[in-house]
């Protein structure tokens, strides 16, 4: 009967209940949206950086990080590959890369470029790089073909079929130069690199740079990218004697972690502002409800209802409201998130450029994570329940005579 009392009281002032429920709902939806979008954007950024730049984990010469030169490229042969693969079942496969800066020239224009020799099959298996091709194809080893970032191609005024000249320094100061046919253009997800990147086949690049069988980075693709540290440690043991070291993406990009943490923090601040605003709104309706029913409470206390019981009934009422609000927030929030998940927010024009300049893609992705639901749902539930303690406290300290006036 107490539950009945609480439940009916809910619907006594339908409008007020609906207002309260919908403000809680709105809070939940907004919180879910902010968090899921933030998380999605951060995840996307991370995926791009790890997918196209660093991988989750790399093996490098131990000097390479301080001095990223071809002189610190290392020999990657079958024996090294075998050693790693047999010792580490949790390593899925290895991707060899050779990277260096060179001058790239078209007909008239010359620019600095980042040349990367890759094993296209392995690379694609890891990050589906072929899907990023705007036009053309990656070349086979020995074909002397290059794929350019769209940004770079525009700057050099090059199109597919044109000839690209590369000039630079190979291993141990050797002059290196070569002509390559542009075989494809790629939309590189990291903006700065889109203006710089040139992909060659691994062998072509090694030959160009006088670094046969050598690589600057060996990207390790783990079976489970979530738990990198144990693998990183055991791998280090394996390759230590080869003057190699293992770096996780976190070690390679501390600035990225900082940026992500900052982004997370600013998202949190926004959420707290939201919580406070909504909290005051809910408090307002709860406050009027308490005042309006003061007399009723007084009568119930007079005829013999314990304060604790009355406080409990009123608390259950507000609990109903809160749960209703949070659940409907989950419902509506999921609909909205689903919608944006399948129709990602696509920025165009200036906004798209702006996003690019900040290193984001013009498409914002939404992450679905039960964790966000749990966290936001319970945060808002806790806040509303704290607010809802107010009438109960009021009842606990109420003067019966006062309340009947």
């Amino acid at each position: 009967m107490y539950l009945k009392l609480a439940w009916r009281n809910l619907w006594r002032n339908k409008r007020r209940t609906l207002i309260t429920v919908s403000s809680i709902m709105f809070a939940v939806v907004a919180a879910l949206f902010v968090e899921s979008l933030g998380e999605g954007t951060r995840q996307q950024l991370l995926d791009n950086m790890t997918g196209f730049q660093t991988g989750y984990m790399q093996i490098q010469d131990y000097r390479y990080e301080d001095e990223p030169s071809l002189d610190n490229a290392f020999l990657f042969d079958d024996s090294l590959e075998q050693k790693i693969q047999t010792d580490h079942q949790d390593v899925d496969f290895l991707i060899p890369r050779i990277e260096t800066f060179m001058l790239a020239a078209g007909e008239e224009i010359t620019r600095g470029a980042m040349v990367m020799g890759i094993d296209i099959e392995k690379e694609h298996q890891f990050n589906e790089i072929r899907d990023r091709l705007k036009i053309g194809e990656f070349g086979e080893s020995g074909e002397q073909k290059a794929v350019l970032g769209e940004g770079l191609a525009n700057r050099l005024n090059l199109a597919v079929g044109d000839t690209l000249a590369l000039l630079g320094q190979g291993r141990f100061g050797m002059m290196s130069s070569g002509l390559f046919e542009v075989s494809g253009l790629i939309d590189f997800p990291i903006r700065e690199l889109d203006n710089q990147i040139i992909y060659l086949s691994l062998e072509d690049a090694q030959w160009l740079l006088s670094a046969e069988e050598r690589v600057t980075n060996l990207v390790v693709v783990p079976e489970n990218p979530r738990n990198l540290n144990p693998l990183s440690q055991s791998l280090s043991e394996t390759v230590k004697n080869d003057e190699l070291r293992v770096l996780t993406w976190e070690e390679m990009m501390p600035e990225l972690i900082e940026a992500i943490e900052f982004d997370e923090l600013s998202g949190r601040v926004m959420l707290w502002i939201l919580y406070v605003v909504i909290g005051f709104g809910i408090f307002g309706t709860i406050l009027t409800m308490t005042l309006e029913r003061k007399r009723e409470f007084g009568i119930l206390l007079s005829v013999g209802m314990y304060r604790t019981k009355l406080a409990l009934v009123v608390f259950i009422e507000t609990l109903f409201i809160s749960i209703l609000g949070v659940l409907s927030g989950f419902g509506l929030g999921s609909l909205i998130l689903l919608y944006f998940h399948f129709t990602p927010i696509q920025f165009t024009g200036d906004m798209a450029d702006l996003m690019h300049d900040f290193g984001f893609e013009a498409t914002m992705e939404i992450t679905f994570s039960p964790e966000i639901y749990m966290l936001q749902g319970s945060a808002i539930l806790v806040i509303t329940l704290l607010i809802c303690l107010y009438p109960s406290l009021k009842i606990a300290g109420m003067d019966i005579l006062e309340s009947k006036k």
Partner: protein
Amino acid sequence: MPIITTHNLSKVYNPDTVPVHALRDVNLEFEEGEFTTVRGPSGSGKTTLLNMIGGLDIPTEGHVEIAGTRITGMKESKLIEFRLNNIGFVFQAYNLIPVFTAYENVTFIMLLQKRSKQEMKERAHELLSAMGLKDKLDSRPKELSGGEQQRVAVARALASRPKFILADEPTANLDTDSAMNLLDMMEKMNREENVTFIFSTHDQRVIDRARRVITMVDGAIDKDERKSPPS
């Protein structure tokens, strides 16, 4: 033994600022089965007296005894339980829980007393029928007239089987017909079930129906008259 005794009951509101002597040295006794009204001009202390007897207010001096139990100075939780089991209350208006039907309003108080379902059901039907509300069991307060609401309130007060019923101006918000009708019901319960009623009023016609009339002036008992029971 009287069921209610007040000993030198005094109440001073705002003793430190503008003291108001709402009750001055009131000594009264009420016997079981009485049908008493407290009358007096506005501000004479009727409500204050009833609140003292009902344990809703604390006297400045003196004390109240109910059936040999001293309620003045009782701990609040004990007092609430004492009220629940010994005193029925009818207030001037808005007595009922708005979201409950007449029937639920009456059973609710028995639920607080933890009575059996069977008893709750039987007594609620019995009382509401006695109050002439047989057809209104499932009506919510706002679907009832003021008089009907007060009758439900009386039924609720009776439901807990209290030793007596306190009613502060129960007819104040009612038109004459409804007021007389409520009085009829109260009288009937008093006659048939020997329920003790103490009620305050301004209304002369209500006063005429009481068998004992206590007149208050300025917080003190001015007159205490008993009519011989009608034969």
